[in-house]
């Protein structure tokens, strides 16, 4: 079991009103699953992703990530968890513009305290794994959207996390690039990587194995994806 969420509640207290973003969520995700989290905006899926990503804290309930109860951890401990157990892929890529592709991929290892030589070796391997071996010394502004997202995926992989959390990873990409990125995710999942992906697009969710649908802070559906699109795990 990679993720176990029990009776999770998240309430935003604005001072005037209290907004219950998540109501008593229960969710379990096994190793090597490929899950799509779906729902309209305001449904609570982003809140869940923030909590799963240890960027936000839950109000009530329990969240166990890779056998660690993260609901009791402090800020610095959460930072260490994010560093070692979670790989983030964002809609807006979120690469640092001043660093090269290689430098961006090295960053999680920098915060893990890894020596430089080992970092470079692993970062190069990760970039080759997503098919960017020849662009590693380019800065983000010299890369296409699809290439940027591949750098981000390489960055999410380098610390061998327990899970990859992808938040609308194809939201800023054209159809062709989207297909390529979904191919990479499929390939990684075939290699044993656990992936949770937030999306509101049905055809993107169609690539995953399991779809969890949110509405108004609750899960309204959780089932295996039928007629799954399989691209054969292409990585380039």
């Amino acid at each position, binding site marked *: 079991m990679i993720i176990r969420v029990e009776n999770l509640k998240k309430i935003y207290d604005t001072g005037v009103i209290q907004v219950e973003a998540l109501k008593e969520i229960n969710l379990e995700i096994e190793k090597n699953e490929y899950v799509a989290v779906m729902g309209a905006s305001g449904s609570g899926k982003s809140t869940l992703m*923030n909590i799963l*990503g240890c*960027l*936000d804290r839950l109000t009530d309930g329990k969240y166990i990530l890779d056998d660690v109860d993260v609901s009791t951890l402090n*800020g*610095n401990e959460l*930072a*260490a968890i*994010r*560093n*070692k157990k979670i790989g*983030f892929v*964002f809609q807006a890529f*979120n*690469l*640092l513009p*001043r660093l090269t592709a290689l430098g961006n991929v090295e*960053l*999680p290892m*920098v*915060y*893990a*305290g890894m020596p*430089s030589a080992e970092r470079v070796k692993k970062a190069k391997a990760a970039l080759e794994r997503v098919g960017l071996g020849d662009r590693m010394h380019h800065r983000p502004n010299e890369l296409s959207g699809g290439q940027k997202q591949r750098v981000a995926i390489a*960055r999410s992989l380098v*610390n061998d996390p327990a899970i990859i959390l992808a938040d609308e990873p194809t939201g800023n990409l054209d159809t062709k690039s989207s297909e390529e990125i979904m191919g990479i995710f499929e390939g990684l999942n075939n290699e044993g990587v656990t992936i949770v992906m937030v999306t509101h697009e049905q055809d993107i969710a169609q690539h995953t194995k399991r779809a969890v649908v949110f509405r108004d802070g609750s899960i309204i559906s959780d089932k295996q994806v039928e007629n799954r699109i399989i691209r054969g795990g292409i990585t380039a």
Partner: protein
Amino acid sequence: MNLMESFISALQSVRSNKMRSFLTMLGIIIGISSVITIVSIGQGGKQAIVGEFDDMGTNVININVKSTNNDIEDRDYLTLKDAELIKAKIPEVTSVVPAAGDMGNIKTEKDTKFAEIDGVTQDFDKLMPVDMLAGRFLNERDVETARNVIVIDEITATKLFKNPEKAIGEKVKVTVRDNNTNLTVIGVTESASGGMAAMFGDNYPGTGYTPITISERVLPDSKITFFSVMLTSMDNSKEIATKIVRLLEQSHRNEGKYAAEEGFKQLDMLNNVLNIFTMVIGAIAGISLIVGGIGVMNIMLVSVTERTREIGIRKALGAKNKDIMLQFLTESLILCLIGGTIGMTLGILLGFVVGKAINIPLGVSPGVILLAFGFSSAVGIFFGLYPANKAAKLDPIEALRYE
């Protein structure tokens, strides 16, 4: 993230905003360079003044015959025997230089020079720097055997004999009021007040040193009213001064006729004044450093706001609060250290140029350099702390959402 890496990454970030970084540094550059300039000029000035006094021997107590009430009798005046007594009885005393002097004329057959005639002993050169241009200074035998000799200074020699070499062995007539004495020139010294003499030219009075033992013949009023007593150190100068005065009172069987004061009290005062002066101007210059520091803080706050998203990304990837803190602190430190280094170089150069112009040595010490680095790092850390803390405390989700 170790220190070295945050240093390199901070350096890159400073470099990527060259113009902004330079303008921010400018405040620090101006602050540090003005502090360094002022401190080094102040130090140099002090060195110059202390150096001048150093030649004179600073471990000196002056003994005067007090003449406030005009009730001084003949027996109260100091004698050469007193000088020997003091030297014999008080171990801390290295030498005693009695002095008697008056103004008069030094004459050859052709020419006359107005001069100060001083009766001194061979120890006089321990009190004042005596640089011989020709011949020699008075020695013990001259004094003991009361020889009819004189040592004249450069301007006198030049006036009377054209050049110092020619003066040696020549006879001069020394006239003090109605008193005429024929003396032989045995040496020529550099004029004690070289610069002043040059300014006044021929009109500046010369100096002649004769053995104090012939003062009675040379000077109409040869009473000794002044001793310069040299000590091994000034550590117990007050006690020693009291001892000397008591000794004199015993030997002269009188009371309250002698006063002792430390020879170069003025030096200490001058030093103090100079120190205070340097500190005050340095502090005023230091204010510009604070203004520079505020500039650094300002730009760091802008930088934190601009890079909110970067901070969010770094935090999502596992940066702890202290990593972010360190990153921004290193940046402000680097800004200040580079500014400090440039400022120090400029300050030393400026101090050198100004020092050259007013003719004082360059007072740059390792202390000054340490001061510059210490100050600029302190400014960097102090004014970087608030922005860095602000960056470190950003909420990762809000930082990631920041557009």
